């Protein structure tokens, strides 16, 4: 098994775990946390795909890596908005 496959499988489990937390947790903040776990899983999956695409002297395919950076920042913006909504809801 290669490193890319290993971390890809790890990503699959992360998505499953996050989805489970999102469904079963009653507290909203825990659901936001679980949603972030799903996001991280998806990003790692991208990273594994990027690692498989290593070529031309690069350690990994830079295109998916750049997309993941964009994704992490957008996920943060979404989390901040969700947290603000949550705090407003229960003030």
């Amino acid at each position, binding site marked *: 098994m290669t490193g890319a496959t*290993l971390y890809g499988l*790890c990503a699959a489990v992360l998505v499953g775990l996050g989805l489970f937390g999102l469904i079963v947790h*009653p507290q909203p903040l825990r659901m936001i946390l679980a949603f972030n776990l799903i996001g991280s899983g998806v990003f*790692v999956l991208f990273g594994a795909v*990027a*690692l498989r695409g290593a070529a031309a002297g690069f350690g990994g395919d830079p295109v998916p890596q750049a997309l993941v950076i964009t994704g992490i920042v957008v996920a943060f913006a979404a989390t901040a*908005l969700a*947290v603000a909504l949550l705090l407003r809801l229960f003030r």
Partner: protein
Amino acid sequence: MAFDTGLAVVVLGVAVWTIAARKTVAAVAGFVAFGLLLALVWVRLAAPDVALTEAAIGSGVTGGLLLGAATRLRRIEPSAAGETLGIGLKLAAAVLCILVATGIAAIVLLLPEPAPTLAPQVAKNLDRTGLGNPVTAVLMAYRAIDTLLEVVVLLLALVGIWSLAPDRAWGGFPGARHHADSDGLLAFVAQLLVPIGILVGIHIFWVGSTAPGGEFQGATILAAMWIFAVMAGLLDTPAVNRRWLRLLLVIGPAVFLAIGLAGFAVAGGFLAYPEAYAKVMILTIEVPVTLSIAATLALLVAGPPERPPNG
């Protein structure tokens, strides 16, 4: 390989705990640990740029944001909880999630050989951008429109947060006023670390054109240092109706858009750079964009205005 397996197991263990922990604060602490371990994973995945982003945003700033939220929600948490699922539904959810995970795992195992890659195209055109870091080149040249839209998305999220302000605090100061602690210890830590942090942030931004780093990572560190100074009571958050603040927030996207439109005139397309000036133009975009992102991220963490602008 043994190292990778061990790391993956630890990452999954911390993830399980983040889901299973009884106390929310403990779960958030687990999430911060998770982000830190993920940074190690990104280094192993040969993506140091992503590792920097994950360490700065995923672990650092998100951790600060969620810790603050967990503390504020602690008192009302029991009432804030929705209904708890019965054991049958939980089992059904578990089965569903295992199916989803198995599906993704199957896709991972059945990925095409040889792997499709855009790396050779990036390598072939890297010289034309004048940049040495392929990831920055993708972000600022080949997929510049994604980056432009992302900066706009950040601004929209901030508008969404501001729109949650109560009427009396409209245009006012976000968050509670932090006062310097009595023995000045926190203020001392902040005075010591904030200047160093600002230097590190500028360093990470600056090396981004040739080495791992770049505007998002640098901006996140700058934002974290600003939040640090606010927490320690050295600064207050600015009222959000201040003209300079609004200007700071839009200057990045505005310059980005202006240079993008100028691309029609000088290079025949939106966000096209004339070859000789590509690096200069990319830097011209990056500096204001970094400032705007830093301000936006910091204000995203600060939350909606809570105190009226004049009092």
